[in-house]
């Protein structure tokens, strides 16, 4: 009897652990979604700036509260962050491609995480099913 109770508790612990993993992965997916949105906004902004043309004035944020007016000198070169605190100058087209490739990379990672969640749900179902089958056997 005590053994059956122990098995039941183990299954419950396993299910709880799997649910915790799922929640953690969901939080990661939310972070990836935010990153994707930010990158898409960047591409949209660069395209708009290119369309507005050189010589136009723009307001550049300084901190969270102030803005400074500046003139767009050159949109042929864009400085892009490439990771590890390094930024590099790219041509406009190279920069757009780099950012779009980054979006694709994150989307691929997002897909893997979603698949992981699906697999974890399958594991939970199997655990619950196993527990129910055991209960039936013990009747």
């Amino acid at each position: 009897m005590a053994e059956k109770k122990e098995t039941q508790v183990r299954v419950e612990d396993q299910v709880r652990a799997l649910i915790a993993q799922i929640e953690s992965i969901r939080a990661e997916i939310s972070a990836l979604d935010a990153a994707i949105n930010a990158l898409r906004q960047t591409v949209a902004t660069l395209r708009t700036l290119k369309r507005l043309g050189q010589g136009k004035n723009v307001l550049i944020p300084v901190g969270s509260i102030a803005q400074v007016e500046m003139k767009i000198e050159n949109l042929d070169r864009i400085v892009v962050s490439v990771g590890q605190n390094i930024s590099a100058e790219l041509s406009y087209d190279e920069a757009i491609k780099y950012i779009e490739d980054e979006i694709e990379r994150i989307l691929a990672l997002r897909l893997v995480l979603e698949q992981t969640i699906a697999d974890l749900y399958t594991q939970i179902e199997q655990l619950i099913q196993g527990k129910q089958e055991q209960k039936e056997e013990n009747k």
Partner: protein
Amino acid sequence: MELNKSNPQEAIVLQLQLIKAELEQLEKVKEFLKNLEPGRKIYINLGEVMVESNYLEAIQYLDEKEKELKAALLELEAKLTSAGLKA
């Protein structure tokens, strides 16, 4: 109870994975810089300020980061080994 005991070790394993991912990214950035057209400007992000740099300085900066990460990796692997676990 076993679940609680394994948590510090799980934290070490997670830290190891994060450092390995950072080392991988570092290699990719080095490769990117190697393939960058000569004459293109390179900047190092120092937080609020980005300082203009060059290829050699940027690689040196990344090499130093790599050394620190590898040292941290060795330390964590030693901790795991002494705890009797493999990453």
